[in-house]
């Protein structure tokens, strides 16, 4: 049994176990959920440490035939693209389980759904079979709707639930059609992703088929990732979601669509990806600039964080659209960094909401005096959100900009402005209006996270951001070789002058330029 099966399996097993635990054994229910996610996280760290960068093929592989007649098998394995995502997912899931103390009603159902969601999404990231890739994502997605519908807060709960269900179901189903069409068109007669890719190397898909399938995947996955203009479900949904759900969805589940684009769409549909790259690049300006502006105007902390999280998706799309090694590596870096960041910010806003009962920015103020730990954590999260060196986000964003510069200079300029100026403005506003200034009298009785248990999730997520911020090499060494493979396939047949990492000497030159970037970044980060 592969370690990956255990990472995704423990939460699912725990969910099954919880069914038989009586609902008044609250402590035991919570302990089982926390323990299962903790085991997952520890195993994920172990797997991450044992991963050999640049090894050929997938590691920790396991394959069990499931439906032979259709070529579906349970196939898991990691390479540089998903090893970091699984680590991030497992850590965020553990943090989310720790933060679930704020749920006071129907705890049993909540923890079951949380565990199903965790197991589903970790399995989806580990999956190397198209069918299970989709199946496990769907398994993780449906609990989200129920959790928002039942444990959500605020008056807009029903509307937001309705909207998020509708949007995400449509996105998932469009992607499903795209995946089925891809399976049929590939002619490999298997759902196994490595086999399809291997098959496509000798029998590439016809260009008109690619041009039909790519938009299905782009917009299907795009809706799931809140690609502008299909993003409106996200701020609203996260605004009303209970914070553990928002943490897991914004942090982990949302990366599924991006991972799908990189893992499946780029290598299998290269011509279509090249012709759609411009569209993606300009749409992501919508994410970064437009949604950034929208975020500036928000009066509710959760809506602001939700919008800023949508804006961050733009950077990842930009990295994918640049179709070169640096851009794709940067995209994977931001996926991981943003996972920690989104989880951290939603966990913090959840804490503030629990204490004050409101997230209206105008009603808050001076909270840093009463909540030194939470306040500091929020300050650091805000700094990470606007791309301060030292946090993992900076590494990713800077890498994406280096990658995108050659492909889309104008888009990059606009995005830089969006990242540095707009992001800076709304994040510093948050800090000023919520943490500094006079403390309204009604908040005199609120209390900070006191015990180690309460502090642990925030500390864990912050530590992860800092570790990967200072040592991006931990990730880039792993991502680089496999991103190179993806980029090679995605740029096959492209004109030589546009290719940034040519096939013959691409490895070396790309390594060189990336290493150069890092050496430029790291001193800045340590300052």
């Amino acid at each position: 049994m592969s370690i990956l099966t255990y990472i995704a399996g423990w939460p699912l097993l725990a969910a099954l176990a919880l069914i038989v635990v009586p609902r008044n054994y609250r402590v035991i229910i919570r302990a089982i959920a926390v323990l299962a996610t903790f085991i997952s996280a520890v195993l994920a760290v172990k797997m991450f440490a044992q991963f050999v960068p640049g090894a050929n093929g997938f590691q920790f592989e396991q394959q069990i035939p499931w439906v032979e007649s259709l070529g579906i098998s349970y196939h898991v394995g990691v390479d540089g693209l998903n090893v970091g995502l699984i680590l991030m997912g497992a850590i965020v899931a553990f943090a989310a389980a720790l933060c679930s103390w704020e749920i006071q009603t129907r705890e049993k159902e909540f923890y079951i759904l949380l565990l199903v969601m965790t197991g589903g999404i970790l399995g989806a990231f580990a999956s190397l079979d198209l069918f299970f890739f989709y199946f496990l994502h769907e398994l993780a997605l449906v609990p989200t709707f129920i959790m928002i519908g039942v444990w959500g807060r605020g008056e807009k709960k029903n509307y937001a639930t309705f909207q998020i269900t509708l949007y995400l179901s449509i996105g998932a189903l469009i992607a499903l059609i795209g995946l089925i069409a891809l399976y049929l068109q590939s002619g490999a007669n298997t759902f196994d992703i490595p086999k399809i890719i291997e098959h496509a190397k000798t029998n590439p898909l016809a260009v008109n088929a690619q041009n039909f399938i790519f938009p299905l995947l782009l917009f299907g996955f795009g809706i799931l990732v809140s690609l502008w203009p299909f993003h409106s479900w996200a701020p609203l949904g996260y605004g009303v979601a209970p914070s553990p759900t928002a943490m897991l969805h914004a942090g982990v589940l949302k990366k599924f669509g991006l991972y799908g684009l990189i893992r499946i769409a780029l290598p299998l549909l290269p011509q279509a990806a090249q012709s759609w790259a411009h569209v993606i690049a300009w749409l992501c300006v919508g994410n970064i600039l437009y949604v950034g502006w929208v975020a500036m105007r928000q009066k509710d902390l959760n809506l602001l964080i939700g919008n800023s999280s949508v804006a961050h998706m733009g950077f990842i799309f930009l990295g994918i659209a640049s179709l070169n090694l640096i851009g794709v590596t940067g995209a994977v870096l931001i996926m991981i960094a943003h996972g920690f960041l989104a989880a951290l910010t939603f966990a913090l806003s959840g804490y503030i909401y629990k204490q004050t009962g409101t997230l209206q920015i105008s009603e808050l103020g001076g909270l840093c005096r009463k909540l030194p730990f939470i306040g500091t954590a929020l300050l650091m999260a805000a700094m990470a959100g606007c791309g301060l060196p030292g946090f993992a986000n900076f590494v990713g964003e800077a890498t994406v900009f280096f990658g995108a510069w050659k492909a889309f200079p104008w888009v990059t300029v606009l995005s830089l402005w969006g990242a540095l100026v707009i992001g800076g403005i709304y994040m510093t506003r948050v800090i000023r209006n919520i943490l500094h200034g006079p403390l309204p009298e009604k908040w005199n009785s609120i209390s900070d996270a006191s015990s180690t248990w309460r502090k642990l999730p925030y500390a864990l997520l912050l530590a992860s951001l800092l570790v990967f911020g200072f040592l991006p090499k931990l990730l880039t060494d792993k991502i680089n070789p496999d991103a190179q493979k993806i980029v090679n396939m995605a740029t096959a047949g492209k004109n030589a002058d546009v290719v940034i990492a040519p096939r013959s000497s691409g490895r070396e030159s790309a390594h060189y330029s990336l290493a150069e970037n890092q050496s430029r970044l790291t001193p800045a980060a340590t300052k």
Partner: protein
Amino acid sequence: MNASLISLEISVIGLGLVLMLADFFVPAERRRFIGYAAIAALGVLLVAGLSGNGSCSQFGTAFNGMFVNDALSLFFKRFFIVAAILVLFMAAEFSDRLAAGSIAEYYSLIVFALAGMLFAASSNDFTMLFVSIELITITFYVLVSFQRGKLQSLEAGVKYLILGALSSAFMVFGIALIWGTTGKLNFTELAAVAPQFADSKIFLLGVLFVLVGLGFKIAMFPFQIWAPDVYQGAPTPTTAFLAVGSKAAGFVLLLRVLFTAVPSVTHNWANLLIIISGITILYGNLCAIPQRNLKRLLGYSSIAHAGYLLLGVAALSASGQAAVLYYLAGYLFTVMAAFMVIALVLRHLATEDISGLAGLSQRSPLLAATMTIAMVSLAGIPPLAGFFGKFLLLKSVIETAQVTGNHGYYCLAFTALAGVIISLYYYFGVVRAIYWSKSATDLSPIELSAPAKVSIWVCIAGMFWLGLFPNMVLNFANEAAKVLGK
């Protein structure tokens, strides 16, 4: 002639007669338990007769090719017997709502309808088709209006009678036209001569009329009008058998007629099938949205599911046909689970309003979970049977779209998606009523009898089994679909 091929059908009819006779000897208050004897007998037939090398699972034809035993009929015979067993469990729970002592008659009618379905699974001739369909339909007229004291049940019975008679008339007319032009009634012989009549309007009209008759059975648009009323008014076990058994019988006959009798015509009618399937999906799902009566809601949802099943028929491919069979297998356990819960929970209520489910999560966690799983499976969400079935159907449609280049299939696939999304709304409405309704007045726990528990666990296991381990049933379905491709 090889009469031993119909030994299964003869045994089932014999069982029906024994059940009727038992009416004379068993005192009224104990007649309920006759049902368990019938279940045991059917269980023996299923295991002994239809398992891999069972005595009734040999292949061959009888009665001059009118009756055929092949992989397709074997698949459906297993299906019908499992369905009948679950319906008998339900009927035993329902007996207190039928006229005193009449339950044995109800059991025997179910078994007779089962015999009709078994014949339908094997029919390879229009005469056989008509006789088996009439055996099913006429038994159902009685089954639908079995609660004679209840106005709704009688109303449903009359509606079903009138529309059923009308559709039978269409079907007979169609058969007559086919026979008149071609001189053939046997499907195999007809397939050989059908291409010659491809331009004969009368022949095509005949095929169309047969399609009308079968469309009535499966509740496809525009012959779906009866379904909601009859589902609502009929006794719950009847509704369940109508939703599963009668619909599946319609589908096996539809597959046989379209793909073994007149394949040459069918391939010209791809667009007709696409349009009918799309409209059926949209009609069923859209009309289900405002429904408050649970059985009526399932009536509309059953129309929508007929539309999904037609996706596989419209795909005109072996994978499409296999998908239809697989989907029906999943549908069997899902719908039976839902109706079992309805029969048990809404026992003392005059209407079957969704609000009657309020507080079910406290009254009986098992029933609440069963209903939830059934709704989730109907909505097509993993890891349950409905998801894998819908996946296969969609896959077959897109496959045909790519092979033929007919863009109508892509439109159909997107229509099906729209249907799935609409259906999320009303299926989750039911789940919401179970867990989050605040208006629960009756919170008394529901006592479940041991047989009821057994049947519920069978349904739950079936839904998970078909969702998580599709291999075995899918292989059966693929084998069965090969018969149609010959």
